[in-house]
Each structure stands twice: as C-alpha cells, then as structure tokens.
C-alpha cells in the first residue's frame, strides 16, 4: 500500500512530505509508548501515535520508518514538523481514533 492510499483510508491531512506519498509500506504499528516501539518493532515503516513530541520523530528515524500518523486530530508542533522534514519522514494527521485508524489499515491489508 502506498502512503497516498494510507492517507485516503485514514481521511488524513499530509502535514509534511507531500512529495513522498508514492512510498510503499507493508507493515505498521500503533503506540503511544516509544519504548515499546523501540523494543518490539521490526520492519514496520508506518507509526500511528497520539503522542506529541520530537521523540516520536526521533524514534521513527532510529527505526528507519517512513511515515508518522498522528491520530485523534492532534496537530504536530513546529519543532516536530521541522525535524520530520529534515529526516524525510512523512507526517499525517487523521481525525480518527487509534483503534479505528489501525483497524481500517489492517482491514485494507496492512500487517502488524
């Protein structure tokens, strides 16, 4: 599934990285605990989270992830956006809650 499809399925806004929406993703993870993302994630390239701080981008960067989706309509702050742009990480924002967002992507074929 491409990031463009992810965006459509989640009714999301692209906050940064508009040019990278043709990137293909196969696996995703949803968590507000970055410790768990660092401990349990392998080869997931999409992170869904409700957490709002620069550590979300740093965690995604360390895990070589391509995209972060902020759930529950959370608006990323300027420092988060700046860091994500610098690391070539796509940021999206969806009004959906975590459970619904993960469910829709799973239903559409994305694995955990």
């Amino acid at each position, binding site marked *: 599934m491409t990031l463009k499809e992810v965006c459509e399925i989640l009714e999301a806004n692209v906050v940064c990285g508009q040019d990278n929406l043709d990137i293909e993703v196969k696996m995703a993870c949803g968590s507000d605990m970055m410790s768990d993302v660092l401990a349990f994630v392998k080869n997931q390239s999409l992170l869904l989270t409700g957490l709002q701080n620069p550590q979300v981008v740093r965690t995604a960067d360390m*895990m070589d992830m391509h995209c972060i989706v902020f759930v529950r309509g959370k608006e990323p702050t300027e420092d988060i956006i700046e860091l994500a742009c610098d690391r070539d990480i796509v940021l999206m924002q969806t009004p959906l809650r975590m459970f619904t967002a993960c469910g829709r992507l799973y239903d559409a074929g994305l694995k955990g």
Partner: protein
Amino acid sequence: MDISYNVNGDDFTRAGEASSKFKKALKQVGFDAEIIRRVTIAMYEAEINMVIHAHGGVIDCKITPEKIELWFRDKGPGIENIDLAMKEGYSTAPDNVRSLGFGAGMGLPNIKKYTDEMKIETELGVGTTVYIAVNV
C-alpha cells in the same frame, strides 16, 4: 575513528540528538543498514536514560574495522540494583517521563537485545558507565 558527544540533561526535547548525528555519521561511512539500526537504537535508549536519570553526560564512540563501541558516562545517582534494572518492565522513571512516551522499563533490556556486548559499571552517588559494542 573517534567521536564524542555531550548530552544535555536539562532538555528532554533534545534527547536523541547525539544518536541522530551518529546515525548520519555511520551512514556516511557506509555501514550496513541493519548494523546502523542496531547501534542507533541502543544508543538512543542509552542517551534517553542519561537524560531521564542522570542529568546528561558524555558519549564516546569508537569505530574500528571489527566493531562499533560506545561508552556512556554520567555523574548521575547510579543504579541501585542492576539485575532489577535489566528486567523488562521494571522502571524507576517518574510519571512525567511516561507521559513523554518513555519509562516503560524496556531501555536496558532493549540495549542488550540490539548489541553484541554490554557492560555496566555503576556506583551509587557517583555515576554510571554503560559500554556497548556491535560487531560489524
């Protein structure tokens, strides 16, 4: 190749800057992506620990043809019980750290998981040195 980083302990939002810079350096040297990922995840966890528990410190990195070695030196409170600290899920981090997405008690076990060698030297009230190495 030797590189050192100072870790500022007062600003949690900047925690991870050193790991991010070292990741870029490793990419420039041209290491395998999986090696880079293992080193930088372990480094990031250790850097976060320095900020959460020890008011920052110094990270020394050494790259040789055989391995990538890192020393994390802090002047923090020390680790009271290393066996407990190594247990998954055990954490002494305050609640405000958990609200930032860390403090799940996965830091040290995670560092061990991603590295080939890990040593902790700690003295209460004096500080802690964590050594890690990843074979290349």
